[in-house]
């Protein structure tokens, strides 16, 4: 029988391994091995047939505690958020079942066969699109984060909230969104000169509506049909979601049904009463769309404890900016007295999660761990003190200051404000 080269090589390796064994052990011990019952010494996973195939894979039952943390209104269970467990995850892509949620009145059940998108208002010809039609347009993919404008809002309070990192800062997730560039559809309908804004409306039980500058839709906006390669999850906008890279979550309208081109914003509740930032003088910043640079050490973080003293720990976290690429993440173990550059996982993408890491040798001393992101506009993530000096304590939205974890001498981690 002819042997292929690879096979021969394997045999050769096998042979050397065996000869090694011959060299190391005496014959009697080898003979004794024939009496061994391998079922007793091997793990059960190797001695009995495994489970069945599955039509749609699920996480290991051993990981059943890795879940989104739900905070909803008891009188209105469809109103609230669920936090993405970023402190339990690695890499940069958020699994679809763990992407954060913000719903205003529950997750709608929408049949894609009957759903349409209407593009109208200041256009030459109003057009409607079925989902099947949209699937025939050229698609683009964009890896980007989406962050709720209200993420981290407990950090405006005067006491730090003692909860796991992502249950205070995890209204942000990162995915590959694939769909049709919005500009194709707008151009097909014919944009009139007077059009400057677009009122986007959702088909959920809040009929959520917000106004978006036309310029953003003509820039990098995508009508997403797919999330990380599969069709959108219902809670993330199935069958159609507007994705505006780098802009606050509320503008990434889920369950999209209409884009109406207008001259001016509609002044809806979610761009006046909410998602506006109250300043110390009593005025409010409106249309604060861009999410500024931010970072979060995901491990070690609140609630974790360091088992070895002294010990080496792989400090890691996420950084992102709605204005571009993360160029640098610095890490401090002394509450911002001194900083060291962390390593950035490649590739670093614009308006997307960037994973940073740095090995850290703990000697049992009290420490305050912090990370500080810089983006390619030169913007540096501010300290909490700096942010509050500029914006006061009642902004509620857009908290992007440095987040601090205190390491006590017994190795327990707490959320603190070092200022």
């Amino acid at each position, binding site marked *: 029988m002819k042997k292929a080269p690879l096979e021969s090589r394997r045999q050769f390796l096998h042979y050397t391994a065996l000869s090694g064994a011959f060299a190391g052990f005496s014959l009697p011990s080898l003979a004794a091995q024939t009496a061994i019952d391998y079922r007793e010494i091997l793990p059960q996973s190797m001695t009995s047939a495994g489970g069945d195939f599955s039509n749609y894979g699920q996480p290991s039952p051993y990981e059943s505690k890795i879940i989104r943390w739900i905070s909803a209104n008891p009188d209105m269970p469809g109103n609230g958020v669920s936090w993405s467990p970023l402190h339990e995850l690695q890499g940069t892509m958020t699994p679809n079942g763990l992407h954060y949620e913000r719903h205003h009145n529950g997750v709608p059940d929408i049949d894609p066969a009957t759903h349409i998108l209407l593009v109208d208002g200041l256009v030459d010809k109003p057009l409607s699109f079925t989902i099947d039609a949209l699937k025939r347009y050229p698609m683009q993919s964009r890896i980007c984060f989406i962050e709720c404008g209200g993420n981290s809002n407990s950090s405006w309070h005067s006491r730090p909230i003692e909860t796991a990192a992502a249950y205070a800062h995890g209204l942000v997730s990162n995915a590959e969104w694939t769909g049709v560039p919005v500009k194709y559809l707008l151009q097909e309908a014919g944009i009139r000169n007077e059009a400057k804004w677009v009122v986007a409306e959702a088909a959920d039980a809040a009929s959520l509506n917000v106004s978006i500058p036309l310029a953003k839709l003509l820039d990098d906006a995508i009508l997403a049909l797919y999330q990380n390669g599969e069709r959108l999850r219902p809670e993330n906008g199935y069958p159609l979601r507007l994705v505006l890279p780098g802009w606050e979550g509320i503008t990434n309208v889920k369950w999209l049904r209409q884009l109406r081109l207008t001259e001016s914003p509609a002044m809806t509740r979610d761009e006046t009463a909410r998602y506006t930032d109250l300043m110390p003088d009593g005025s*409010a910043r409106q249309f604060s769309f861009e999410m500024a640079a931010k970072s979060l050490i995901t491990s070690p973080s609140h609630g974790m404890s360091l088992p070895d003293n002294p010990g080496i720990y792989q400090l890691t976290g996420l950084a992102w900016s709605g204005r571009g690429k993360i160029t640098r993440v610095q890490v401090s173990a002394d509450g911002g007295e001194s900083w060291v550059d962390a390593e950035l996982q490649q590739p670093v993408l614009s308006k997307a999660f960037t994973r940073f890491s740095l090995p850290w040798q703990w000697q049992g001393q009290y420490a305050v761990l912090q990370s500080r992101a810089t983006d390619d506009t030169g913007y540096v993530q501010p300290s909490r003190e700096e942010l509050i000096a500029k914006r006061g304590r009642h902004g509620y939205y857009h908290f992007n200051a440095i987040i601090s974890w205190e390491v006590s001498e017994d190795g327990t981690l707490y959320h603190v404000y070092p200022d």
Partner: protein
Amino acid sequence: MALSIMFIRISLTLALLCVLPGLAAQPLYQPLGQPAAGLSDKPEWNLTIRPDGGTLPAGSGNAAQGKLLFEQHCAACHGFGAIGGSAMPLIGEVGSLNSEYPEKTVNSYWPYATTLFDYIRRSMPPSDPYALNSNQIYALCAYILSQDGIIKADVELNAVTLPQVTMPNRNGFSAIYPQ
């Protein structure tokens, strides 16, 4: 029939010829939008009410009617008198925005009264959006606004009077886009 099919064939071929050289720069796709001018005029595609009130429906209501409706449909969450419950307060705190403890209510914070009609119709009460009719929604707006004297208790709100209401915080917002 045959002619038109041929015509499409020819134009497609021409399009391909024109487009192939610049394929990377110029995506080629078939426009698949359906003419929808008929939809654009329908009420279900004109839900948004802008500050000019252009799409406000017919009907009217006042604060006394609104008080009863509020107790029936809203107080369970927003509290009796709309002062807050499991859901936020909707009234009071006018003038508090630059104080140490600012409270953002409809009456203290919202710049436009039209937004109140828009929002109640599209999402309140949460278990039954769109269940209230226009008269009822005008009445609820009148009740909420009158609680802080933004309108007088006897005012009938309708498509003409609602957009004329001046909210206390009308000039409280500054757009930071474009930066």
